[in-house]
């Protein structure tokens, strides 16, 4: 089936004329049509545009010299502004916004020949760990527990992208990761999710959540595909001052690289109390596989890990409270009726336009930045962030890469959603520290738990050393031989 191919396989098939880009795209638009009513992975479907682009891709392919992603159908997280295509951030407040510009990352993908199937669902403004906060409804995880029909969450915030890739409704997708929003849903949906080094991909044209943390990355079904996509997405951008001006390597070449003599760090602090035996077992399995592949396993310590989550939930809301101030009803979105003053207009518009979780984080952020609390919260959090960064710097003096679990549990069911938001935030406990330090990190699916749900392991690398995590990830992937597919997917009736 065309929808089961990886990007690498499809790119080869297109060049060998085994099938056309139109056929490949049609297989995917059909899958989207068949499944999206249930999975809800896409907020906006652009099948007509995709088929039009596929025709052009076939012309380019026929002429030869086509860029790598020519004719490859992808899903685009609805946080990336796409020229002429509605971009919502899964929020009511800009639910009808059609940008007159293309984000740098998506522009690079288009230049590389990619075809966009539509805009994928997410937690509102990327705030959430279960894709339960979208104004356009929740996403259903294509995986289900054995003998249990409960609808599971795909993870968040890039849950739409993860579900689309897992359910074969896209060959790959873009995600954004602020505290784990690529890696955690990748783990929940049994796919590969790569968060590059902060500054590796331009943030220009991506709707901001927390500017000092947000980073775009690929979500795919293989490590090689992630490498292919990242090569297309990364690179310097004069329009983003925080985007690094370092050369982009050919990441694909790092796949299959020998791991002989590589030092893999196992951080003691990631052995969190109350962690499930299954997660611990998978972690051990990963350690064994890497030792087998020639790696040296080294115990390391990241002593400030335990403060990661608390610090994150000060800094990210602080930045979001400021970044989201522009949605005030003056220029975008639905303006509340019947306002009696300018302040009233802001209050009503923002109350009606933002969902509960976004409002909660804006309030938290406003609080921690306010004059009387700035030093106690924000400033302190910045100091702790520096310590967390130093932990990583020191660890990477001893090792080349770190191996940890991606998430403390497998995907949970919608109705098991914790009532306490703080409980919900614990989903990000393993992903947040790398985000705080700007390290590149990747989740690779390695096993199924006893209920048949995928579990992922996380690799954390040195700054701008995505190559090493790709090399290790691809070895892990090979050793794990993870071939399981979700029950809900293209070609299987929904």
């Amino acid at each position, binding site marked *: 089936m065309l929808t089961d191919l990886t990007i690498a396989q499809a790119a080869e098939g297109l060049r060998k004329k085994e099938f056309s880009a139109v056929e490949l795209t049609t297989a995917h638009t059909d899958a989207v049509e068949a499944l999206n009513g249930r999975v809800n992975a896409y907020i906006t479907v652009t099948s007509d545009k995709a088929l039009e682009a596929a025709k052009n891709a076939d012309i380019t392919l026929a002429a030869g010299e086509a860029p790598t992603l020519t004719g490859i159908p992808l899903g685009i997280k609805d946080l990336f502004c796409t020229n002429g295509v509605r971009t919502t951030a899964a929020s009511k407040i800009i639910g009808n916004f059609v940008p007159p510009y293309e984000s740098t990352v998506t522009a690079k993908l288009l230049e590389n020949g990619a075809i966009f199937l539509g805009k994928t669902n997410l937690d509102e403004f990327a705030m959430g760990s279960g894709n339960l906060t979208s104004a356009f409804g929740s996403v259903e995880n294509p995986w289900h527990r054995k003998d249990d029909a409960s609808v599971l969450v795909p993870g968040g915030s890039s849950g739409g992208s993860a579900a689309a890739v897992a359910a074969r409704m896209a060959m790959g997708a873009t995600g954004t990761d602020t505290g784990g929003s690529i890696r955690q849903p990748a783990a929940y949906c049994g796919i590969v999710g790569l968060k590059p080094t902060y500054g590796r991909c331009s943030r220009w044209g991506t709707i901001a959540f927390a500017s000092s943390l947000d980073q775009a990355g690929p979500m795919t079904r293989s490590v090689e595909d992630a490498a292919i996509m990242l090569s297309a997405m990364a690179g310097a951008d004069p329009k983003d001052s*925080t985007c690094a001006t370092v050369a982009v390597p050919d990441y694909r070449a790092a796949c299959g690289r020998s791991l002989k003599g590589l030092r893999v760090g196992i951080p003691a602090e990631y052995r969190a109390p109350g962690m499930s035996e299954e997660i611990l077992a998978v972690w051990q399995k990963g350690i064994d596989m890497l030792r087998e592949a020639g790696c040296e396993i080294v115990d390391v310590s990241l002593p400030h890990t335990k403060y990661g989550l608390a610090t994150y939930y000060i800094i990210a809301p602080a930045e979001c409270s*400021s970044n989201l101030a522009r949605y005030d009803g003056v220029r975008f979105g639905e303006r509340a009726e019947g306002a009696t003053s300018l302040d009233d207009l802001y209050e009503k518009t923002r109350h009606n336009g933002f969902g509960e979780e976004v409002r909660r984080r804006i309030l938290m952020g406003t609080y921690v930045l306010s004059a009387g609390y700035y030093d106690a919260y924000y400033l302190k959090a910045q100091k702790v962030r520096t310590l967390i960064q130093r932990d990583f710097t020191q660890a990477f003096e001893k090792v080349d890469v770190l191996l940890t679990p991606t998430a403390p549990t497998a995907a949970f069911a919608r109705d098991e959603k914790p009532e306490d938001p703080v409980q919900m935030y614990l989903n990000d406990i393993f992903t947040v520290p790398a985000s705080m330090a700007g390290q590149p990190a990747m989740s690779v699916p390695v096993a199924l738990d006893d209920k048949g749900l995928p579990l992922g392991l996380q690799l954390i690398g040195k700054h701008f050393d995505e190559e090493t995590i790709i090399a290790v990830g691809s070895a892990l992937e090979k050793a794990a031989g993870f071939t399981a597919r979700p029950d809900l997917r293209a070609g299987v009736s929904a």
Partner: protein
Amino acid sequence: MSYTIEGNTGTWEIVVGLEVHAQVISKSKLFSGASTLFGGEPNSHVSLIDAGFPGMLPVINQACVEQAVRTGLGLKARINLESRFDRKNYFYADLPTGYQISQFEHPIIGTGVVQIELSDGSTRDIGITRLHLEQDAGKLMHDQDPKRSFVDLNRAGVALMEIVSEPDIRSPEEAGAYVRKLRQILRYLGTCDGNMEEGSMRADVNVSVRKSASEPFRTRCEIKNVNSIRFVMQAIEIEAARQIEIWESGGEVDQETRLFDPHKGETRSLRSKEDAHDYRYFPDPDLLPLVIEQSWVDQIKQTLPELPDEKRVRFQQDYGITAYDAGVLVAEQTTADFYEKVAKGRDGKSAAAWVTGDFFAALNRTGKSIEESPVSADNLGAMLDLIADGTINGKIAKEVLEDMFETGEAPLTIVDRKGLRQVTDTGAIEAAADDIISKNGDKVAEYKGGKDKLFGFFVGQMMKATGGKANPAIVNDILRKKLDG
């Protein structure tokens, strides 16, 4: 010169600090490529960044940074090689992103000093606390529609330099002199046009009063957005009087932001400390710290023009003119340049007298700026040469200058066209003198009888007879000889 106010309970001193917002002269805005042209159609110079569109990011404009450094050097201030941009968060309809990007904690320019001159000829140093870069906001228009307000974002994102003074100012006159001097320096540097009418320079005035110079500062009020030097001076006077009245009646001045209403001659409360904004400053995560090289600062230093203070001293030395004339001539760089062209290689005092006298008067009368002057510096200089070499005398020169203003012609052309060359032929002058003496026998007798003042009468008659063209020195000489001899 001390300025004090007599209250019912004694003498009060005023304490003033100024925050001047100066719009940076640059082609594009502080963080976007949009044009900074003044007076375009509303919202015609707005980029997606200025309008705060989703996903847009600021990128610092190096030209604006260079202007700030230039200004810092001009204010003899410390240049901070590392500075930072913070976000100042508040909601207002003319602020598209909901925050202003400004340098709150780490400004690009640190302490400096401005020397002001007062009307009694004394000078004083006013300390500069800091200069920082920030974005301007847009403009709300409330008079276009009965029910709605409109937003014009043309100015949104334009670079401003906020120049903060120490509370060193002690009188309205000093405040006026300070703003004038600051404007002069900025114009010399070419970093701000100082045009207060167009809003490219405006001031927030902090005023407090105290009983004596040894008393600590009392509560201050800030008067926002005052847009002329005259209003700055008026606002200080009125606000100081208001505060003194409160203190003297046993009240307490509240720290608050006020507005100056020049029509009613009063300041009014805008917002009090209680409902003051909590701006929630924090480092802008979209921008890296601004790091500049000392070598670049040194390069900029090389391109600084001679500033008014140095120029004034040099003019006094090089051209032997008075401090007052030098001050007038350096007020504007174009005037100083004009004067120097006229004075170079000539008598500096005479050049200063002609430029500040008849030449300025003619400009004033015709409503022209020095750039539009029909009389070039070269032609004015040529006219001085004609006086010096005796071709014309000073009186004729005034007539020639008027003609030059009308025709723009060279002075010699006019002199020849009108036949204004000075008569130096002693024979002709002697004949005229003989004629006048013989016709005015009575006056000659009076003169010889001791009425010396009548000498002027004879000179006048001589000038009349020669159409003003006679060389005055020769006239004097011959008349004396004939009358006294």
